[in-house]
């Protein structure tokens, strides 16, 4: 058993694993869709076996506290990263102002086979948001207001955006560049009950001139919408995107008729009446869940501290001056020193060679 472990612990094995991992990393550049995850998994498994074997059998590692902590840290990172990929979840979400989070609204969901978070306990309501823009329509900070349960039966307001995600039950919701306007509409059919819903327009201001969409009401014909917006957008000046300050005229094309509606106005169409209730907005979020994040960070920091401790213990007794035959006395104004022939090399430094 020990013979096998010693073989698995060899530095040749380490270097081969590192070389394979390097190839895997190079192949993974930019996450190409046709590169399988095995190009990373195989070398990482090999390196994990190598690390564990070395920790168990290599006295140069397991008898040096700092080095031992560093290598245990590396092993911990590999294991935690693997658990993270098996339990993670990623998705996207578009949520309308005033609406609550619903799992069913998630799109592009990718999750590990062991994912079992408490997403059903996540609860928040989207509020208004503002986005700052620099001249040239360069996006700045996003301030998205959300209402979250305060734990006492009420709601508390939070402001999230950019590098400040909303974190609930371990799920992290990040605002994205993807956001825009929506129109709240009520369809009152000739026969039947009225239906109220929203139609999201494309991302704004990215698609400033394509604010159009279509909708087919229940029992009716497809209606094409175009939203004429007045947001104060000025590409030569600082500007704040704020749906509360925006005005939108809804242009409807139906049966070759063009109808312009202001909020609160109706249009009589084939099969019923369409009411433009009000202009609203939607925010696109990226959802990320990985229960190992904080443990990864702690493990990495402890591992690096271990390596730093090893470095300190090893070299504190061997100051760089000990390698020097030159130590000018600046207090005397001159740096006259004897030329070092290289013959009186510090024995301590020599000893340290090949053992960094």
């Amino acid at each position, binding site marked *: 058993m020990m013979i096998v472990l010693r073989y698995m612990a060899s*530095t040749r094995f*380490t*270097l081969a694993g*590192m*070389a394979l*991992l*390097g190839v895997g*990393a*190079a192949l*993974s*550049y*930019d*996450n190409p869709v046709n590169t399988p995850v095995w190009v990373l998994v195989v070398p990482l498994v090999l390196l994990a076996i190598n690390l564990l074997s070395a920790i168990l059998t290599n006295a*140069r590692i397991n008898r040096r506290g700092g080095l031992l902590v560093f290598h245990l840290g590396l092993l911990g990172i590999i294991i935690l990263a693997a658990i993270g990929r098996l339990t993670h979840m*990623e998705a996207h979400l578009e949520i309308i102002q005033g609406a609550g989070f619903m799992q069913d609204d998630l799109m592009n969901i990718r999750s590990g086979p062991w994912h079992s978070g408490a997403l059903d306990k996540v609860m928040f309501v989207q509020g208004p948001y503002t986005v700052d823009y620099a001249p*040239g329509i*360069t*996006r*700045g*900070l996003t301030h998205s207001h959300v209402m979250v349960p305060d734990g006492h039966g009420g709601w508390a307001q939070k402001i999230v955006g*950019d*590098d400040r*995600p909303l974190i609930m039950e371990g799920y*992290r919701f*990040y605002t994205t560049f993807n956001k825009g306007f929506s129109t709240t509409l009520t369809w009152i059919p000739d026969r039947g009950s009225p239906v109220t819903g929203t139609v999201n327009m494309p991302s704004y201001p990215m698609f400033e001139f394509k604010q159009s969409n279509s909708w087919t009401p229940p029992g009716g014909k497809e209606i094409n919408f175009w939203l004429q917006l007045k947001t104060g957008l000025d590409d030569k000046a600082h500007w704040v995107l704020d749906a509360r300050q925006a005005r939108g005229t809804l242009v409807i094309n139906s049966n070759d008729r063009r109808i312009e509606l202001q909020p609160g106005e109706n249009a009589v169409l084939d099969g019923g009446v369409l009411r433009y209730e009000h202009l609203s907005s939607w925010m696109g979020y*990226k959802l*990320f869940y990985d229960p190992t*994040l904080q443990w*990864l*960070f702690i493990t*990495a920091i402890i591992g*690096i501290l271990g*390596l730093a401790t090893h*470095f300190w213990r090893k070299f504190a007794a061997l100051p*760089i*001056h000990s*390698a*020097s*035959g*030159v*130590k*000018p006395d600046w207090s005397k104004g*001159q*740096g*006259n*020193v*004897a*030329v*070092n*022939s*290289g*013959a009186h*090399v*510090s024995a301590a*430094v*020599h000893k*340290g*060679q*090949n053992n*960094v």
Partner: protein
Amino acid sequence: MFDINGVYTELPWLYTGLAAYALATVVAIQGVIRVRGGSAGATVNRSYEHFVLGFAAAGVALLAMSLGERWIRIGHGPFVDLFELLMSQLFSLGLIYTLIYWRYPVLRASAVVALPLMWVLGIWVLTLDPVGSPFPPTYYNNWLWVHVGFGKVFLSFCLVGAGIAGVILLRGIERISSWFRQMPADAVLDALAWRFMLLAFIFHSLMLVAGAVWAQDAWGRYWAWDALETSSFLNWLVLGASIHARTTYKIPIRWGAVAIFGIFIFAFLTYFGAPFYSEAAHKGVI
């Protein structure tokens, strides 16, 4: 060379800072050339090192002024475009190298290699447009500072290692070998160079961790194999593999020096090649 709001006020400080670095380089080279004539044990006047230290420190101070002026002019720190990344790197490399030059006289002759390496950045920055870029929303994060700070220390220690490795390699050239007679033997230099590379490895590891925390906050993922992440991870891997190889095998000193120089070039390309290639520090994520 004029901004719509006025002159690029950081340029005079930048030019004078680069001039100070240039003087430090010239004096350092002249100084070691003068040393070559002495025999072992003979007294050598190393007072020129006062001037190298003074010019280098002046260069650092002037570059600090340049960075400050630019910060005031464009409203944010040197984190976005290549011009300010190079300026900032010239400052941090100069600062850490100057501190090491002052603290460790035994390494001073390696300035003949290290300072010209910095001049690659110095010449490059002169070719770039100093106009500022808007600060991306994802850069308003304190971990950016930590990440960039560790990265700067990493590259600085790599520069020190590369400077020492360069001395080992230059000693192989007969006409130049006598320039470095006041430095310890190659075996000692080799040990010192790898000591700095191990320090570089520690700070590279810290840089990767801090970068992952920043990326998680800023873009909702801690790792995404973008150009800079892939290149810096490969750099970390190569440095780690080199340290392992050195501790296990009897690598000839010159080969070790070549490896250190190669790692420095790799780090250089990671820092200044990947951002240049991808235009933003992390392509597609701002």
